[in-house]
């Protein structure tokens, strides 16, 4: 069971949250100038790292805010969270 520190509500249990994918994933554009391979990169290709990752979560059963989490995919340790809209936090060493 994860305890995820929501930037607004404080630490809450994992079932209140939904995972929303790794960040940053930047939408290419303008659409008419984007080739199929670039769309595939945007839609499907992921880093999927073993270790620290920056990802988006939503507090679905709480304040319903999206935010960024720095999490380790091996130990599941959470190092930091930050509201959306702020500069992405660095993962660190």
């Amino acid at each position, binding site marked *: *069971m*994860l305890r995820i520190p929501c930037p607004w509500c404080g630490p809450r249990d*994992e*079932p209140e949250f*939904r*995972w929303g994918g*790794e960040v940053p994933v930047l939408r290419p554009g303008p659409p008419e100038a984007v080739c*199929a*391979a670039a*769309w*595939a*990169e945007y*839609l*499907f*290709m*992921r*880093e*999927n*790292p*073993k270790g620290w*990752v920056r*990802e988006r979560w939503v507090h679905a059963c709480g304040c319903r805010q999206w935010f960024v989490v720095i*999490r380790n*995919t*091996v*130990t*599941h340790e959470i190092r930091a969270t930050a509201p959306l809209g702020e500069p992405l936090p660095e993962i660190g060493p």
Partner: protein
Amino acid sequence: MRFSALALARSALSFHDNWPQLWRSPEPKRRYDVLVIGGGGHGLATAYYLAKEHGIGNVAVIEKGWLGGGNTGRNTTVVRSNYFYPESARLYELSLRLYEELSGELGFNIMLSQRGILTLAHSSHQLEMLARWLNAMQLNGIDGELLDPPAVRRWLPLLNDSAAARYPLKGAVLQRRGGVARHDAVAWGYARAADGLGVDIVQNCEVVGFLRAGDRIVGVDTTRGRILGDKVALAVAGHSSVLCAKAGFRLPVTSYALQAFVTEPVKPVLACVAVSMATGTYVSQSDKGELVVGGGLDLYPSYAQRGNLPTLQEVVAGLLELFPAFGRLRMLRQWAGVVDVVHDSSPIIDHAPVQGMYLNCGWGTGGFKAIPAGGLVFAHLIATDRPHPAAEAFTLRRFATGALIDEGAAAGISH
């Protein structure tokens, strides 16, 4: 070493102290024609079919840990071919047919038990979806039949189908040829047969990087030194992204933990594999009498082979709604495998974007049932540089062309 009554009798004379190793543990050579990375079912089957079907015996299987210790040892041993799309049906039916002959082919009892797999519907909508799925199966030439509730009751006498049940019974689709097989025996049987054809199986040897000559991958750096290979073939499931990052490209793969659990052993109570469309829980009873239980993925990416409690609770809750009597049993063991999930739940068997490298990944939650076909078609691709006819659709470029094979049946449940 082949097993036989004679070998058993001979070994009994020395109190079974002199059984030989089933395969050698050689020091890796300097160079191989093909390096297969990953000593799970798919990697071992690939090496076996390379040697047997294509005469390429100068092959090494390189395994980070021990043989069959990853997802091959962490699944729920279900085999079936009840898929929706023709491309999937062809591939998984090939796999099931190979499984049906595999004990004889390898001379190793894989304990295939085609006891039938029942997918249960709990609402009229689910029943309609099941009927549609069954129609597709039959058009694909796969055996299957629709059962009404009285027929399901004969298969599953312990199922809670009372009027007050949280998940009332509306019917089920049965694939009689589905069932279970012994997962370790599949790995060991392929390993022994491949070893007998000259394949080197190198365990405790982790790939830490790739060797390049220009644009081409020409070997691997490992914890046991450099090994050259004309062709490098990846069959590493949940760690595909990690190795491909070392080779300089990304995959459409996300790695999740998939959990399973077994209860304490009891007398026979469950004659088939049962899957619920409502809860995603599935259960079968092992030959030892343990109930083997599985369900959906954990809810976020993970490389931890242990799984998390909320998913375990949800799966067990789903099981107990269907079979309240199982609430008396205690869980013995719980584990998780790291599975390579792609967006359309279909595998990738293709050339990598770098020369000299080949990919077998994306099986997600359903790799075990695909081991024989996965090995056969991957060996064909490596040996001939052309896709096997049964695997032409499972390319990497389908994610750019849009020709996805969106196989909801891959998980055996409705999404």
